[in-house]
């Protein structure tokens, strides 16, 4: 088996005349956080939807555990162990923590026509799974609409981990969150990594990405600017590549502040 759980070779995806991503090469390793960086419209969401089985690649090769695969649907990818937490979360606000946790994978007890959703056990598992991610769920039967955005992200992640995901894909998990909640979500990401999962993290916030990432892939206008190990690039390099040489004025100011910060740290 290959050293990488996911490998993309020159993968492209077109929508009619729109080239959303073009000739992307990417390698994802277990136990690593792989950050996908890029500005709005760079093709990040399209790329992970291709990984997650939502879109089939228009071109190129997708290897999973060393073998070429074509996922027909997100469910197929999920069954192989690729779990995605979408920007729009894939959770149902009106349903309880437990019902969301087990949605589509309900555990049952009893037989024949008495086969039923084992809510008691499910409650315990959901509560435990969340606790392992550092979230205390007071009442697993509470609607998740009452939880904060960060807690919901953590629920989605805890669910993926519980159901044996090998690859966890997170699409801008911190985009709508405050500082404290972002920190929580990033901590959960670190826990997932510590458990040996491969995490693909999308963000356009370098400050969220840099502390936690092991590897970066930079996208710009649908094309890859390459993948880098953290040891190969500094925060400034990453920022510069993301901006693609544009808006340099703002950038220079920002960079100066970083160097000041790094000097004092």
């Amino acid at each position: 088996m290959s050293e990488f759980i996911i490998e993309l070779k020159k993968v492209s995806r077109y929508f009619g005349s729109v080239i959303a991503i073009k000739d992307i090469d990417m390698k994802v390793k277990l136990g690593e956080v792989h950050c996908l960086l890029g500005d709005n419209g760079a093709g990040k969401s399209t790329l992970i939807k291709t990984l997650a089985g939502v879109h089939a690649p228009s071109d190129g090769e997708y290897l999973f555990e060393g073998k070429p695969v074509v996922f027909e649907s997100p469910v197929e990818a999920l069954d192989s162990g690729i779990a995605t937490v979408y920007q729009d979360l894939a959770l149902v606000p009106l349903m309880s923590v437990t019902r969301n946790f087990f949605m589509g994978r309900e555990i049952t007890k009893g037989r024949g026509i008495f086969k039923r959703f084992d809510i008691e056990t499910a409650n315990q598992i959901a509560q435990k799974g969340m606790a392992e991610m550092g979230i205390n769920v007071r009442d697993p039967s509470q609607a998740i609409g009452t939880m904060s955005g960060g807690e919901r992200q953590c629920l989605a992640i805890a669910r993926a981990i519980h159901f044996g995901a090998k690859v966890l894909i997170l699409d801008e998990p911190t985009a709508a969150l405050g500082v404290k909640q972002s920190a929580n979500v990033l901590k959960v990401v670190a826990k997932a990594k510590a458990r040996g999962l491969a995490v693909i993290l999308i963000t356009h916030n370098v400050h969220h990405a840099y502390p936690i990432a092991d590897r970066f892939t930079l996208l710009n206008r649908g094309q890859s600017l390459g993948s880098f190990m953290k040891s190969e690039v500094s925060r400034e390099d990453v920022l510069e590549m993301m901006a693609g040489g544009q808006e340099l004025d703002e950038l220079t100011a920002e960079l100066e502040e970083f160097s000041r910060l790094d000097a004092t740290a």
Partner: protein
Amino acid sequence: MTDQTQSVDLSKMAEDKSREEKSAGDERVRKVPTWKRLLHRPEFGAISGALLVFVFFFITAGDSGMFASDGIINWTTVSAQLGLIAISACLLMIAGEFDLSIGSMIGFAGMMMTIPAVYWGWPIWGAILFAFAGAMLIGFLNGYIVVKTGLPSFIVSLAFLFMLRGLTIALSILFTNRTIVGGIDKYADGDWLAAVFGGVIGKSLFTWFANIGLISSYDDGTPVVEGIPMVIVWCVFLAVVASWVLLRTKYGNWIFATGGDDKAARNVGVPVDKVKISLFMFTAFTATVYAACQVFEFGSASADRGVLKEFEAIIAVVIGGALLTGGYGSVIGACFGALIFGVVQMGIFFTGIDSDWFRVFLGAMLLIAVLFNNYIRKKVTEARH
């Protein structure tokens, strides 16, 4: 906040957070009083509404015979008929769809069992099974069109409302030259399946009740209430089964998920289309049970049976606490909604109030229920930032 302070805060916050967690324990758990938890149950409104309605008619119509044994059977039967279709409409609404063709289906299904039995000489049980199969096939078609086209079920089932009503009248005239087809009672006697819909149960129990004077009897000694009509038995049975399925099974979780957010549900592998189609078939099934109970009670089918019943069912479901937008609701609530409906309808009859007031009451009830549900939904999903 500028970016560099943000990155500083981030690590500091993470520390704060872990400290907080170690000492967290239970101080974040606020005790919620039981009454407040009850208030947040979807069926709360309907149950308390039903209590109010009972108290009202107990005071205003207590001595009118409304609460005598035959009076009770009377409004229970009316409520149970509506309850039958409200149960299925409720599950469908929780799954995020409507079926406006329920009422027309009642008329159509009645004809589907009566014409073959009376005019074509089919055995009654065969005609009944034919009606169930036909209705559920139409329910399937209704659901299939909704899920495949992605059109609102409101429109698709509205089309079925008109087509089925038109077909009921046209076909009954074509085959029988009339719109009320009677005479099925002659054939129904002794048919095992007809008894499941037309009869009553507990005959001997009620005779005994009459003998010991618990309920009154006619001059010839037969009790005023012969037994419990099968429609009530069906309603209670389906309410228990549907509620159990909704709250306690995998499929029930899929119903909530489908109506709550069908994209999210699909992404985790919930067979959303199958859930919806099966629930359209279930509404057709309950409409047929309704039709069968009426056909064997009256001994006839009529092309105008079930007119406006789809709206009454939706009103009962909404009074029962379901959200029109899907994802939330209760079968028990819907049954209490139907009970309010039946009690008020018959109560107005017993008190002699002009029945126009019934409609005013219904409209007002619906409005109050929607406002109340909306408030509860906000409470339930109130996000803390």
